[in-house]
């Protein structure tokens, strides 16, 4: 980031800005401490996890244990399987949402057809609706039609999370796109479908990437759906992590910490790569940065 342009009345290292820095420092200590603590905890041996705080000898064993069958034996959680499940569910959910959402976002962004606002706001309402309202009947239905504890079942339910995000963000990008580019393509001799693929889609590619990745993050972090709608076979990492401590017998804080870190890593890495588009995505297109 280049040197920040100073606003009126601002000096680069004035007392005010130093004071600001100090207060910010306080927040960041608060913000990062738990994460640092987790890393420390994950590096401790079984003995040290309860006997030491900051002075210990670090070991990477726990990460290996968590991912191995040894870990499964100790905690009755198959963590690698959970990771795989998370990947399948989230990638699947995002792909489905893209296939369905891109045309819908295009239609709503390019034409203001009758009912487009209703459709958009219905989709938005899924974002704010209490999940359990849908889960209870789905619990019953899934058990009846055999979708309980399956990948397909989760991919379907995750549409509640991924589709509103993708449709709203992409609609905002399509609205911003000038119509004349597609019109020029039409006059060049391309059909509307080809004009869309050739002109519109490439223009919103960054938006699609951002929306897809953000949707991936939220799908990955989802807890309440798999908690209720999956059993023991196809649980994702979010549920798996919580099971680490409930195994009865010994409490493996260090393993839990290691698992938590592994579970949290993919969304963090993805988030760092789409930093630029985060604001527009998080606000569903309401705020453009």
């Amino acid at each position: 980031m280049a040197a920040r342009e100073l606003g009126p009345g601002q000096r680069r290292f004035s007392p005010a800005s130093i004071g600001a820095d100090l207060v910010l420092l306080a927040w960041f200590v608060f913000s990062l401490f738990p994460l640092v603590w987790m890393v420390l905890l994950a590096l401790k041996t079984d003995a040290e996890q309860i006997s030491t705080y900051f002075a210990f000898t670090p070991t990477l064993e726990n990460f290996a244990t968590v991912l191995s069958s040894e870990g499964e034996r100790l905690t009755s959680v198959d963590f690698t399987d959970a990771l795989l499940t998370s990947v399948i569910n989230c990638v699947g959910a995002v792909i489905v949402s893209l296939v369905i959402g891109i045309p819908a976002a295009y239609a709503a962004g390019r034409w203001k057809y009758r009912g487009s606002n209703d459709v958009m706001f219905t989709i938005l309402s899924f974002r704010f609706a209490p999940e359990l309202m849908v889960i209870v009947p789905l619990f019953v239905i899934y058990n009846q039609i055999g979708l309980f504890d399956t990948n397909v079942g989760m991919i379907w339910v995750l549409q509640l999370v991924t589709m509103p995000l993708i449709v709203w963000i992409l609609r905002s990008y399509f609205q911003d796109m000038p119509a004349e580019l597609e019109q020029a393509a039409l006059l060049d001799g391309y059909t509307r479908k080809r004009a869309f693929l050739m002109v519109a889609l490439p223009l919103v590619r960054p938006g699609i990437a951002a929306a897809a990745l953000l949707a991936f993050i939220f799908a990955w972090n989802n807890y309440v759906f798999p908690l209720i709608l999956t059993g023991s076979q196809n649980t994702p990492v979010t549920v798996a992590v919580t099971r680490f401590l409930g195994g009865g017998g010994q409490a493996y804080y260090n393993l839990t910490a290691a698992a938590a870190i592994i579970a949290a890593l993919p969304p963090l890495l993805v988030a760092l790569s789409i930093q630029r588009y985060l604001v527009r995505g998080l606000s569903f297109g309401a705020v453009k940065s």
Partner: protein
Amino acid sequence: MTTTAPPRTPAPVVQREPRPVPAWRRGLRPYVLSIPAVLIIVGILYPFVLGAYYAFLNYAAVVRQPVFVGLENFANTLSDPAFWSSVRVTLFYAVVATVVETVLGVGIALLLNRSSLIGRIFERVLILPLMIAPVIAGVIWGLMFNPQYGVLNYVLGLGSTFDWLGETTAIWSVILVDVWIYTPFVAILVLAGIRSLPKEPFEASAVDGASWFYMFRRLMLPMMWPYILVAVIFRFMDSLKIFDHVFVLTAGGPGDATRTLQIGAYQNSIIQLQYSRGSTYMFLLWVIVFLTARYLVSVLGKAQRRAAGSEE
């Protein structure tokens, strides 16, 4: 500039038989494109409606054939003190969390806007707590809250018996975690808003000799208001249905100190398998959410119009 003769336009393609496309077919296009999405919407609305319908039945796992019972569930629930306790807990949680996060978030955004060194470094990591699964955040804080082995009691010198998740402390602890996770959301949104504000009014004001405080109150705040409101709306609505980290930290307890509405619904539907009772909770929560949403969106619209007007 041009001295060469332009190329003669090549002979047009003769076999251009224009095929008219009737207007109605053209009008259908947006609808056709939206069909898959609408199907999904219907597919999702069906369980919703079904869930709402459950509230009018006496559905439970033990009931063979659920029957329609009209408003009986609502009557029971609305007279059940456990329900109202959930409402109190939820509203208290939502209001306190939203207020704290808004104040902190706006403050952080303003500070980041003004800061020099630390701000630029830490802006990149501001988002981290938000990107961690809330349930995992709950797990992390749960480990820290541990009275004997958790680090908080040690670092803060509270001894090994201070219970962060006790009867009176639990609600504050879960709110604390909420603040930890979601304040960055407010901060990022508001910061983007601040950065998108036009510079001219501030420059003009500075030339006129206005103090920073004046500029803040009269210029910045009104223009920032729509962004703050968007953040408030998202936070408040999300807080009403909070579940993940609260559940994993306290499962609603101790007692019903942290039993939010969704946790209450979970206990009814999934633990006690009283599907209809849980659905009633959700139905009522949905009503609260719906009314709040409509109110807040209208406030947002007004603020946006006012901000646009004040920019001219």
